């Protein structure tokens, strides 16, 4: 593979998107898991809609919001003087929105399964609520949360439909590896398509193996 820029764009987009989706997703999942209100399920449904939506539909909505004709896109252009869509930022937002629901759903289920007696015990020991959340709840739920992060990572790395609509296909800027593979197939560049696909498959496999390893260690 001669041109490494799609790989670098992909890695950067995926890492940033996974970090942002994990930070926001775990927080939201915790809040949802602890919420007693019936609105919790409504909020969760809204957040997890991207799992069910076809990526092109999600891409269309994001493009409508973030494009220079959309409300967020216009505000962004007012602030920074350049558009979000068809840039690496656009690709990152696409990947984050795609990854977020996987983190939220999986983490929420994991957090709900934490035995409340453990949390109560911690409270009785005098731990403040924040410490209980971090040192007990999230720690006990960490295997499930890691699984959610892994799913989110996989989705962020593999996204094509949303990315191609929101970030386009600008080589060296917004072109991620999955999009570059598609482009290479269209250009008849079989070597690039094959190598790009191999790299993507290898990254996915390595990350999932690492996470599995981490989970085994955590469960001990």
């Amino acid at each position: 593979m001669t041109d490494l820029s799609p790989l670098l764009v992909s890695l950067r987009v995926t890492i940033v998107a996974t970090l942002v989706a994990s930070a926001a997703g775990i927080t939201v999942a915790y809040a949802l898991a602890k919420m007693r209100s019936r609105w919790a399920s409504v909020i969760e449904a809204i957040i997890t809609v991207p799992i069910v939506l076809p990526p092109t539909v999600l891409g269309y909505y994001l493009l409508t919001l973030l494009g220079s004709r959309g409300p967020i896109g216009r505000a962004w252009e007012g602030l920074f003087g350049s558009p979000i869509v068809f840039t690496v930022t656009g690709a990152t937002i696409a990947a984050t929105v795609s990854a977020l629901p996987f983190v939220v759903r999986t983490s929420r289920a994991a957090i709900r399964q934490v035995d409340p007696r453990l949390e109560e015990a911690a409270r009785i020991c005098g731990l403040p609520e924040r410490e209980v959340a971090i040192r007990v709840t999230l720690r006990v739920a960490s295997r499930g949360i890691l699984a959610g992060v892994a799913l989110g990572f996989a989705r962020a790395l593999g996204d094509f439909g949303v990315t191609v609509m929101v970030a386009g296909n600008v080589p060296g800027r917004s072109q991620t590896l999955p999009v570059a593979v598609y482009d290479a197939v269209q250009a008849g560049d079989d070597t690039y398509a094959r190598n790009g696909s191999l790299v993507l498959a290898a990254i996915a496999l390595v990350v999932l193996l690492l996470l599995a390893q981490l989970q085994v260690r955590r469960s001990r």
Partner: protein
Amino acid sequence: MVEHHLAKVRVAGSNPVVRSIVKAGRLGVRLLLAGASILVVGGCARSADSSDALVVAAASDLRDAFGELAGELGTTDVGEVTFVFGSSGMLREQILNGAPYDVYVSANVGFVDEVIAAGMSVSAQPTIYAIGSLAVVTSGEVELTSIAAVVTDARRIVIAQPKHAPYGVAAREALQTLGLWDTVESRIVYADNVADAVRIVQSGEVDAGIVARSLVINDPHLVVDSSLHEPLRQAAVVLRGPRESRARAFVDALRTDTVRALMVRYGFDTDVAASGEE
């Protein structure tokens, strides 16, 4: 026993309404922080984004010709060029949504007019620099005799999607003019863009395709009589943005003798009346 005791502790904690409000408040703060971090990341990303290559959004019939062009322009005022290829209609849609492209090169002057009308361009007129043509190609199973014979024999025929690809529109028009469209329509396969159509024929997935001649110039092909369809007027326009002067140099270069000779080698007709600006 223990559970009962714990339940009491929880209730004693504080008023559940107050608690949930506090929690919602905390959640809000965290979401804001998350949002802010996205902005920061976006900001960093943007600065890394301003690499200096000129971004030219070009119709996919130019994939081969412009691939060669990039090397020739490197030493001129244009500098380094990055091409984004796609169907002209898709690129137009991206430009209207704010894609940071510097030049738009369409296979159809109508799309350029729309971009100009939307106020996205520097120039008020498109620069028409060449006329494209259609060619019939086959995967080898069908003999290249005449367009009518090929489309009659082929089980499936690929053309670019006419909804957003000018070569797809021209292919459909040619078939309509020949009176073949109605019999052929059910066997047509639509490709994303004309380069994709070429790939589909060359991979043998379909028997025949009506595609851009510029993409099959080195392969056996039949040129489709250009009187069968509206002319495929290739048009370029300088888009608003930070690299307008280099973008102008690129568009001007399209009408230099060197580039015209290159385009002619790819089967374009560059003998267009001095149209557009000036």
